[in-house]
Structures are given as C-alpha cells and as structure tokens.
C-alpha cells in the first residue's frame, strides 16, 4: 500500500514538472522573440524632453530686451525629501554597492548612513549657497505637503469610487520624481555643489532656462509682458496641437501678456528629445528648435528717455497719479515708444504683486498707453473741424464770435476763458479756433454737424474707416489693448437708453461727454491728421498683418491744410495754447493741448459680503443638524481682491454692498472736481510730418501749462536721439525750421 501511494505521490511532481515545461516552452520558445524585444525596450530609459530656448525680444535697433538664458535647477528625489523608508533602504543598498568603504557595513548601519546623508543635505547646501538651511527645510516641507495633499485628494476620490486601499499603500508618480529645491542656480554655486555633493545620487542639477529681462527700464514692463504656466484653454486652442514635440504640455511657460503673448507663435520653440539606455548611452536624440527672436518697433533708448521725462513730470505733485506717452512714425505707424508711468520691476513682480495690485492711487500694473481710456478733451478739436468742413457746416472763413459764454448765466456752457475771468476770443475762424482752442466755435460746430454725424466721423478717424464693429479694435494686437469709447449711434443705443440731443454734438466737438480714447489712439489720430491716412499702428518690425493706409473720405487737401495750419498756429504763434510751452527753436511742431475733465478714483472702498456659513448647533438634541446662517463680513480695502483676501473669501465672491471711503486725488480748494488730465498731442515737422506724439499727465491740470512743456521735452528727446526719426538730419534742423517758416 505504501509503495503504491508513494507512486501516486510521485505523479504530482511529474505532472507539475510537465506543466512547467509546457509553460516555459510557450514563454521562451513560442513567444521568446517577442519577450526579447520587450527586454530590450525595458532597458531604454523614458524619453527626456529637451526644452527649447524661447525667442528673444529686441528693440528696433537690435538691442536685447528679454531673453532666455540657460540655467540650472537643483532638484532632489521625493524619497529623499520625505525620508521614505523604502527609499532609504534602496539607497543604503546603493551605498554598499558603490563603494569599497561601505560594503562591509551592516545593513542597518548603511541605512543609518543613508539617512544621515539625506538629512545633512540641507545644511551642506546652506553652506554652499546663499540660502539658509531653514529656507531649504521650508521648501522641502512645501513639496512634501503638496504631494501628501495630492495623496489625500486621490485617496478620497478613490474611496468615493468604492476602491478600498490604505492611504500608505498608494504610490503616486510624484514619489518617484525629482522635485526642484533651488531654481536658477548661480553658476558659482553650481560647480561648488557638483564638486562637494556630486556623490549623492538622490539629487540632480538639471539644465533649465530662465527668462531674463535685460533692461532696467520699468516703463517697458507692461509692453514686454510676462510668461506663465499654460492654461487648460491654451492647451486646447494650441495651433500646433498635432505636433507631439511642439505642442504645449502641462507646466510649459507661455506668454500671458504684452509682447510675450502677442508674439507667442514666433517666440515659442519646438522641444527636442533624447532617449538613452539605462547605462546612459544616447540611443536617439532630436535637437530642440529655439524660438525665433521678435524685433519690436520700440527704440529702447528713446523709450527710456521719454519714461524719465514723464516720471519727472508726474513726480511734481502727488496728485499726478500717472502718465503715458506714445510716439508713432507717421507713415509706417510703427510705435517708437510706448510709455506708461509708473511702471514696475519685472524681476520682483511676483514678490511685490500684492502691493502693486493694491496700489490704487498710481495703479502701476495699468498699461496706460493702450489699456486706459481718457476723455480726449480739446485734442479732438482738429478732427471735429474736419467733420464740420466735410459736412459743409463751416468753411475756412466761417466765423463765430466768441463772447465767452455759449449760454449766458448757465453752469457749463462757456469758453475756457470764462473760468480764467478773461473776455471771450472774439470772432474765430477755423484755424484760429484751433489755435486758441475756442470752445464756443466748436460748440456751434458740433451742434450743427450733430452728434450722430460727428461720432461716426470720429469712429472712422480714430478706429479706422470700415473697421470691424463686432469686436474690440486691437490695432497693435496686444491683448491689453482697448479701443476707447466713441459714442456712435449704435453705442448710444446699446449702452445709453436715450436719444442724442443737440448738447451731445457740442460736447463731442470739444472731446467731452461719453467719449474716451487711449493715448495710442490719440497718437494715431495725430498721425492721421499729419498725413491724411488712417493706418493701424504696430509694435513689431515687419508686421505681416494687413495694414494698408486707408484714406479719410470726403476731405479735400485744402481742408486738411486748415486743420494742420491750426495745429501749427497753436504751437508756433502767439495766442496758441501751446505757444512757447511746446515751441522748439529748431523744429516746427504742430500740436494741440487738452484738459480733460475727470473724477477722482476710489482708493479705499468699504466692501460688505453676506456669506452663508454652516453653524453646527451646540445643543445635544440637534447636534447632527447643521444650520446655515448668513454672516455679514465687511472690510475696507483698496481693491476687491484685497478685500477677499482680508476676509478669506473665494476669488469669485461678489460684494453685496460697497461704499467708497476715500478717493484720490484730493479736490483742490475752489473746485468741485480734481484737476483735469493734461493732454498734449502733435506731430513734427510741420511740412513733412514724420513723428506723431500723444501724451497725458493724469490730473496734471491745464494741458497748455503742464502737458505742452512735457511735449516739448519729448520732441527734444526725439531730436537728440541717435536715429533721425524726424527726417531732418542732425545738421539740417535749422533748415527744416526755415523751410517750414518760409512757407507760411
């Protein structure tokens, strides 16, 4: 019986052996080649992308304003940062394997050595770099915290799906990755760290790139713009979505504002990749293609000079909250300078962001040149004159007798002389009305042209004939650009539930009422006045967009000449509002001043939020009942964002009430409104216009007193520039003046 049963038992290993051999036959002989291929594949490390350098941004003469510079990041393995048990065990094994010195060490001693190395990393880094160990600890803690947060989140999500799993058993991809400890490592530290800590395998110095602003000029900050992490929408709208190397990937940095956004398609490059086997030999590699540079039409030197002039001008009084100046080439409409003051420092932007945002008086983040809209005031008068001439309301010789008041004893309807307690201008014809900036002439002109025809003319003149009315007209393409308010019939119908009155025509003719334009529009308006064609301005050299000059219809050369003559007189003849203020000896400037009425902006507001909050009842009976209660939260803050932060509310919380607590600037004694914005706009030279300028000093007061002298400084700066933007040649300035004068 025993023998027989032994034989039965013996069948088990024989049977098992046969099954195993069958299985091995299948794996090694039938599928052997396939597994062989897989084994080879698994010896290849995952592809590593090689990031391209983003294109540089240059000024019109090739000076580098922003560029990508290669740099290095120091990153450490998550296991080392979190001092994970498994990681330490593996690392201990590696230590023993690597060096003769450690291989006699016991396993627990090697693990102790591993832990010691991981823990002393921060102190050693602190010794080698400028940062303190505490900063490294803080950085480590924030990395570990964010990964743990992710783990919590995923665990909860899985628990929600009914997947039971211990939280500790969950392995996240982040746990096998290197996380950045120091960005943009200084080159001297880099070599030091490599020498001192090169034997530690759990951290790496990895190549990276950094966007470097090569200019100190803070007024360029708005224009150059910023880069930031690519958003979900941008990923979806990516025009190169189908190219697996070129397409955006989560975490990519893309232009989010200014030129960085505008020229994104040129600046972005195409990544390359590298494939290595596990022994480190390169198997395949494709080089990255760096982004192309973008050359702006801006002259960085001129821009900086103008920024200094404006900065000085607004520093005169604390009420002058800011200013802007745009310089255009008249024929090409290239923007030579586009200044907004105050600017900000790109390098410390992130650090100071809250402060910059909450600085409600001067609003340094505001790109005033294109993103702020102001009443044009008197600078629009030459355009109004052209409208009057076009519609036959006035001719060159039509006069209006200015006695100082359009409607006697009224509150508003007076010429500006009235407020200075001077008599009226007397009989005014077209050129004189511009020269003296006579309100009554234009009141009458506006009344007869009428608001509808006047604003339609403005619309063509300022935004371009036949522009697309369905969207914002972004003549430069910059994301921040706004196209002002021109109270056309459609606009009034849409936004103001009323009909035009005769008074609208009067107001629009002197650039008041609803009408608002940006400094860029003002400069372009004067460029159009100078050569008679509307053209979209551009800030990029060799702009490929369709930008044909469009004639302003229905105006004869003689009529153009009337307006230009008025602008000439305004600067160059006694009685002109800019005479002596904006007059240069060696350049004939045509221009116009303006003083735009305005209100003070709120700088402190009391915000009230009614918030539903969950309140758990204390009483034992209703302990599981949760009540929601409306709580009234209020705070005083310069911005709504700040108020939300102060009250710890979500970023989309809407206030239920708000009341302005403080406005800026202060209203001077004897006035009911703060000082008006001071405008000056013009072009030069008179006969062969080359450059148009518009500038505004917020709450500067009188355009003639404040803005015109700044305008003169700006034209001087253009003349002093190393480049001959005025077409007069450095030695022929006198000749230019002489030529122009002789013509009159």
């Amino acid at each position, binding site marked *: *019986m025993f023998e027989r049963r032994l034989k039965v038992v013996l069948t088990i290993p024989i049977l*098992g052996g046969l099954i195993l051999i069958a299985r*091995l036959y299948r794996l*090694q002989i039938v599928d*052997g080649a396939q597994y062989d291929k897989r084994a080879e594949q*698994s010896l290849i490390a995952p592809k590593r992308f090689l990031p391209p350098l983003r294109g540089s941004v240059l000024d019109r003469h090739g000076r580098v304003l922003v560029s990508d510079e290669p740099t290095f990041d120091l990153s450490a393995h998550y296991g080392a940062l979190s001092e994970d048990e498994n990681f330490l065990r593996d690392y201990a094994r590696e230590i023993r394997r690597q060096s003769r010195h450690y291989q006699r060490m016991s396993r627990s001693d090697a693990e102790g050595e591993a832990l010691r190395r991981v823990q002393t990393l921060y102190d050693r880094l602190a010794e080698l770099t400028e940062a303190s160990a505490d900063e490294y600890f803080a950085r480590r803690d924030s990395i570990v915290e964010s990964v743990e947060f992710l783990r919590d989140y995923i665990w909860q999500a899985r628990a929600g799906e009914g997947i039971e799993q211990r939280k500790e058993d969950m392995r996240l991809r982040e746990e096998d990755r290197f996380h950045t400890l120091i960005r943009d490592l200084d080159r001297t530290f880099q070599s030091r760290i490599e020498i001192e800590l090169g034997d530690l395998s759990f951290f790496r110095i990895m190549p990276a790139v950094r966007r470097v602003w090569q200019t100190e000029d803070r007024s360029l900050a708005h224009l150059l713009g910023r880069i930031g992490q690519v958003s979900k929408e941008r990923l979806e709208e990516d025009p190169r979505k189908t190219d697996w190397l070129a397409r955006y990937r989560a975490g990519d940095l893309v232009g989010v504002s200014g030129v960085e956004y505008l020229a994104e398609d040129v600046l972005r490059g195409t990544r390359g990749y590298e494939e290595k086997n596990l022994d480190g030999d390169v198997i395949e590699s494709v080089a990255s293609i760096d982004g192309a540079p973008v050359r702006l039409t801006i002259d960085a030197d001129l821009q900086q000079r103008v920024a200094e002039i404006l900065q000085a001008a607004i520093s005169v009084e604390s009420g002058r909250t800011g200013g802007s100046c745009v310089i255009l080439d008249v024929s090409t409409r290239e923007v030579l300078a586009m200044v907004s003051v105050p600017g900000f420092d790109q390098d410390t932007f992130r650090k100071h962001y809250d402060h910059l945002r909450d600085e409600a008086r001067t609003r340094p983040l505001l790109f005033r040149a294109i993103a702020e809209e102001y009443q044009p005031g008197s600078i629009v008068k030459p355009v109004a004159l052209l409208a009057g001439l076009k519609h036959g309301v006035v001719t060159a010789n039509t006069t209006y007798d200015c006695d100082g008041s359009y409607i006697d004893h009224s509150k508003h309807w007076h010429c500006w002389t009235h407020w200075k307690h001077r008599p009226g201008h007397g009989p005014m014809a077209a050129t004189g009305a511009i020269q003296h900036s006579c309100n009554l002439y234009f009141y009458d002109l506006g009344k007869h042209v009428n608001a509808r025809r006047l604003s339609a003319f403005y619309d063509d003149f300022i935004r371009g004939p036949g522009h697309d009315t369905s969207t914002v007209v972004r003549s430069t393409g910059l994301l921040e650009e706004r196209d002002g308010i021109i109270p056309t019939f459609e606009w009034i119908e849409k936004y103001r539930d009323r009909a035009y009155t005769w008074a609208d025509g009067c107001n629009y003719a002197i650039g008041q009422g609803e009408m608002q334009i940006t400094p860029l529009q003002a400069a372009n308006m004067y460029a159009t006045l100078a050569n008679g064609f509307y053209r979209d301005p551009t800030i990029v050299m060799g702009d490929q967009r369709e930008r044909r000059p469009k004639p302003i219809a229905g105006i004869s050369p003689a009529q153009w000449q009337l307006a230009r003559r008025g602008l000439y007189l305004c600067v160059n003849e006694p009685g002109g509002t800019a005479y002596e203020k904006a007059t240069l000896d060696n350049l004939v400037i045509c221009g116009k001043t303006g003083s735009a009425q305005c209100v003070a902006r709120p700088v402190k507001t009391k915000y009230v939020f009614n918030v539903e909050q969950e309140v758990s009842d204390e009483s034992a009976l209703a302990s599981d009942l949760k009540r929601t209660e409306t709580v009234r939260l209020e705070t005083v803050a310069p911005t709504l964002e700040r108020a939300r932060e102060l009250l710890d509310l979500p970023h989309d919380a809407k206030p239920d009430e708000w009341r302005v607590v403080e406005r800026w600037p202060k209203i001077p004694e004897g006035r009911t409104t703060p000082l008006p914005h001071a405008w000056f706009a013009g072009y030069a030279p008179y006969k062969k216009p080359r450059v148009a300028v518009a500038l505004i000093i917020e709450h500067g007061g009188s355009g003639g007193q404040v803005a015109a002298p700044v305008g003169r400084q700006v034209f001087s700066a253009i003349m002093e520039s190393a480049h001959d933007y005025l077409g007069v040649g450095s030695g022929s300035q006198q000749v230019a003046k002489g030529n122009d004068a002789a013509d009159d």
Partner: protein
Amino acid sequence: MINWRGVPLLGWPVLLAALSLTALGVIGVYSAEADIEGPPVTTLRQLMFLSIGISGFMLVQLVGYRELGRWSYPLFVVTLGALALLLIARYVPMAPFIIERRNSYRWITIGPMNFQVSEYAKISFILALAYYLRYRTNYRSIVGLLMPFVLTLVPMAMILKEPDLGTSLLLLPTLFVMLYVAGARNRHLSIILLLGAIAVPSFYFSPLMNRYQRERIQALFHQDETDHRWRMDAGYQLAQSKIAIGSGGVAGQGFAEGAFFRHDLLPEEHNDFIFAVVAHQWGFLGAMFVVLLYLIIIFFGLTIASATNDPLGRLLAVGICAVICAQTLINLGMTVGLMPITGMSLPFVSAGGSGLISNYLMLGLLVSVARRRTLEMAPKPFEFDEA
C-alpha cells in the same frame, strides 16, 4: 569522522542535484554583481551560507535522524516558542532581537546571525509529525486525524500571523501527503480535500485575505501586457519576470548579459524570482535542467522512503520531499505566471541564509535516512488493508 563507505548510493544523486541548483543560484547572483566595483558581496555571503548549510548537513549525518527524532517534540516546542516571540514582538518591542522589516516580524537576530524562524519551523514540523505518526494506526479513524491537524494548524496559524503566507501554505500539503502515505483512509482524506476546496474560495472572499493578496490573485488571471495599469501596478513583478524568462529563449542570454538585472528591472531577483534569472541566462534548456534537478531530488527522495523500512525514516523522507516539492511548484508557478505571487523562495537556489541552511538540513535528514541500513527481517510499516 563520517563513515563515507556507509553512505548508500541513493543519497548521492540528491546531494549532487541540490549542489548543482545552488551553483546555478550563486552564478545568477554573481552575474548581477560582476560589473560592480569591489568584491561581490551577495555572492560571497551566499557561498558562506552554503558552507554553513553543508556543515549542518554533515552534522545531521553525524547525529543521525533517529537521534534527532527523539528530540522532535522538544524541538517543536522550542519552535513554537520562537514563533510566539515573533507574535509578541508586534506588541512588545524586542529590539534588537526582533525588529519589524517590511511590515512583518519574521527574523530573530542573535549577534551577527538572523534566523528566519519559519524556515526552521518547517523541519521541526516534519520531524514532529513524522515522530507522532510513526507507530500509530489510530489516524485511520477520523478522530485520530485530529492530533496531526493540531500539530499542523498551530504553527501554520502562527506563521500566517507573522505574516508569511508562503511558508504557512506549505504545511497543509505536507501534512496531507504524509497522512496519505502513512495510510489514512481515502474516504477521510477526500472529505478533507473537499473541505479545502470549499475553504479556499471562501477564504478569498473573507476579510482574512487583505487587498494586496486579492490583487495578486486578480493579477494572475488578468495577464494582459497591453493593459498599462496592470503592467505598472499589480502585474509589474510578474510582467518583468515573464520578460526575463521569455527573453532567455532557447539557449539563454548567457552569463554576461546582466543588464536586465543590473538595473533592478526585476524586483526580488535574487530571492523569490531567482528562477527568472536562471531562465534568462540559460534559456529553455537551462530551465528544463532546473526542473529535472528537482525531479531527481524528489524521485530519489521518495525512493529513499521506499527503500527504508524504518517508519520514522519513511515519513521523514516523504515529508521532506513534499515540502521541497510544494515549495518548488509554488515558486516556479508564480515566476512563470501560473500561480499568484506569494513570498516564497526557491529551495537551494534563492539567496538568503535561513532558507538555504534549512534546505541543507532537510537534505541531511533525507540522506541520513538513506544511509541507515535497512533490517530486511522487519515488517514493512504502513501496510494496511485498503478497506
């Protein structure tokens, strides 16, 4: 010292097969280490364990299995005591003697030596069971089967609790085979088998089995290399093991092709998955050779059982063959993807001290049985009527 002339021929093939297996294992370990600067630490350690194992083998020859059999109950009690200590260590810290490793308590450390108690428990279990069953006939009644089951289930439960699922799984088949050859009634054994057939699926669904164990079983039935999630998660070890084995082809990648292992692409390559290394290096021919070597050990082991008429010797030989056979089948089965992955080393081949030493101790007992001259006059034990 040892009367070599006394060793009957049957012991030699068993010993030679075991040594060949160990040699293959040492070569596998060395190949992954050969490129690394400095002496091959793991290989040298393995050779050291082998020499300890051979010494143990000799010692068992010197003492003889009959003398050891007399000590089987005390040894069993000592084993249970050691297992109990491991259980207590979970609640009462016993560092530095017992420390937690990978969430389990399996080792007792005394000085430089680490003892994996469950490996030695296998021997003492076989000894005790064989000693208990040697002259009895009452296990031919169903009540008489109670005691052998107690002897099995107590250490089994304790090992399961360490936790060491793999080793604890070995005890039941060993008991079953020993009872079978000792003459337990087919009827009783069938009932037990049936109960087992019911118990296994219900165990699968009971809370006793934890999630990762269940996942491993699911991973076995879901062998789909194109399923990335399976590939990177539950199925990772198995998938890598299959790649290592499959890429061995007919003749193997050879000794020098260690890149696959040098980069740690196969977890536990020196321990539980050493067969994948051997099959990768020596191919289908080498793998068949390994299977053949185990068949030699088991065949000659059972022949030894058949050749002796000492009841203790017979049961010992069968028990040792059963444990080696079960361990080998489970390990090879999981390595090639026929069984769920449980922590189980491959006898004589896997790196690791306690396993190798205990394997050679068992081999020593087997050879010791073979060396004992049979008394031709004695009646053959365990010959019952089938009825």
